[in-house]
């Protein structure tokens, strides 16, 4: 699904990723943990196409060079990033945005675009699973949303788009325990043999609810250690320093 090979990235001449390699197969859930400044968010940003980085190394997505794909093409081909800090977009109605996004992706995949009624039915159903008040649909996108609401909105988008490869960038930070369970449940519902996840997090907490197949520790821009769930538990006990 996703194959990262010896990835280097710099921003303003400062090296952030230093030869990161990671292979994610269909259906696998990988977690990346790491201290502040280890390059976790940079990795997520680069994978989804954010500009401004000086990059070398190879990343293939579904056996194609990921860097040949424009930002929106990555989305069309099933790559999804749940943002650490979802942006507030004044004047843009949430429901309208969700529909525009979903239809842009459907259209690029040769599927029929949903009309307003069809869309509303689907979005209401998915929102209720995430215990989101329907009223948020008529609000401006993320404007005045609480941290938890913003993160839930990201998970709602993920569940609408049903991506092939989802990257969650610290989706758990700022969530209370109830919201955390709901978000984890949103991810678990989407788990299947084809769909892969890359979960970026500081803490083990989220991983208690989403059991990853693999856990990696990112230190100074590369994978310092890989293992399974036990590694996350160990990190929680001893911290990153001891590694």
């Amino acid at each position, binding site marked *: 699904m996703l194959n990262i090979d010896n990835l280097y990235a710099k921003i303003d001449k400062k090296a952030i990723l230093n030869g990161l390699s990671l292979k994610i197969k269909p259906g696998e859930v990988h977690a990346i943990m790491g201290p502040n400044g280890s390059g976790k968010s940079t990795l997520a940003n680069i994978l989804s196409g*954010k*500009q401004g980085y000086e990059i070398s190394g190879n990343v293939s997505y579904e056996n194609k060079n990921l860097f040949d794909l424009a*930002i929106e093409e990555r*989305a069309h081909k099933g790559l999804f990033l749940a943002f650490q800090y979802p*942006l507030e977009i*004044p*004047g843009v109605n949430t429901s309208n945005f969700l529909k525009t996004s*979903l239809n842009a*992706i459907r259209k690029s995949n040769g599927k029929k675009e949903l009309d307003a009624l069809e869309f509303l039915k689907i979005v209401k159903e998915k929102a209720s699973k995430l215990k989101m008040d329907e009223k948020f649909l008529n609000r401006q996108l993320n404007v005045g949303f609480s941290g938890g609401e913003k993160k839930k909105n990201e998970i709602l*988008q993920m569940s609408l788009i049903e991506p092939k490869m989802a990257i969650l960038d610290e989706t758990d930070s700022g969530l209370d325990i109830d919201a955390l369970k709901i978000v984890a449940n949103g991810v678990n519902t989407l788990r299947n043999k084809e769909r892969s996840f890359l979960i970026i997090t500081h803490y083990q907490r989220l991983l208690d609810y989403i059991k990853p197949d693999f856990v990696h520790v990112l230190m100074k821009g590369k994978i310092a250690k890989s293992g399974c769930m036990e590694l996350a538990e160990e990190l929680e006990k001893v911290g990153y320093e001891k590694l």
Partner: protein
Amino acid sequence: MTNQIKTDFDKVIKNLKPSKENINLRKKSLNKFINLGFPQKKEEDWKFFDLNQIISSNIKDLKFFDKELFNKKNKILIPKNALPLILFEHNKIVIANGVVHTIDFRYEDLKKINITNTVKNQSSNTNHSLAYLNSAFTTNYLKIIIKKNYSLNKPVILYNFTNEKITSTNINQRLDIVLEDNSRLNLINLFTDYSSDNFININHEFKVGKDSILKNYKIDDKENSNIKYFYNNIDLDQNSLVENFILSSGSKFIKNEINCNLQAKYASAFVSGIINLDGAKQHEIKTNINHLAENTKSYQLIKSVLNENSKGIFQGKIFVDSIAQKTNGYQLSKALLLNENAEFDGKPELEIYADDVKCSHGSTSGSLDENSIFYLMSRGLNHKEAKKLLINGFLLDVVEKITDLEIKKLIKEIIGVSE
């Protein structure tokens, strides 16, 4: 220019055949205009919009007379597709090449509306050079009086139409509207220009009586190479209200000037507008909100979206007289610059002589947020769609200021903003 304008003036008089008295009035106006000339950038109010220079470099040999304007045999034909499809019922005034073509108030009680359409114009209360030019040359003087206690059933659309036969010509239009006490009018000025390289000089003057409401909307959306000056003077009596909305987008050059005189207590003036430009267009909105009595209120919100080499200007003035205590005045301008060659000039002015007032203003300009574009693109929108959505979002709150729902819908359709 002086010889040309005098010769053209004689031709206009010969065709209009006004009374001697009116000829004298027009002559006086002409001489005043000749003395003053077109406004130039050395005048403070015109510092960002040098009309004299704009006219001389964009119009070759400006004429003040064109026989086409007076060609009665050859009735001006308005192509069916020239007028945008307005889906709601409305009264209409059609002005073609500056000449009144149709007046149709079919939805109204005609005993409650007094309409005068004459050659015999009255002098303007305004004493700037373009008002004199207008008084000297205007072909029609149109005056509408809405009688006391009458609210129009339907809006009035004033179709400003020009055809391709007119070029390099100065066209003047004059309209006075009086709303007697407790009356209501929704007026939409819709520009449809097929002509090119003209200087169109419009002067609308309003008197809004006690407890009356005027909604004054202007839509200039069709691409054209004309230069326009659209002046409004609005006098407001006690507890009256004016809501102005300007959509400024189609003409090459346009300066909209709105003067609101809040002459008695509880009068309110609202001005909101969108300047949406591409190419090398240059549009200005200039306001003078004069708080002349206690407890008066004003609110202004202008948003500009500037592409390519375009230039947007907002000069907004709030004046508070020493007797106008408890004034509440607000002004905000926001500009989005989409190209490094685009320019926005903002000049907020507060002139306050009373001590118990609440007045504030703000002005920002900037470019689209790259992180927001990235966010939207990561959700499958291409760059163009992401940009459009953000611009829509930027403009939505101005459009929401329009309180007439049909007009709001129309404006949303024209600029492609959806909720």
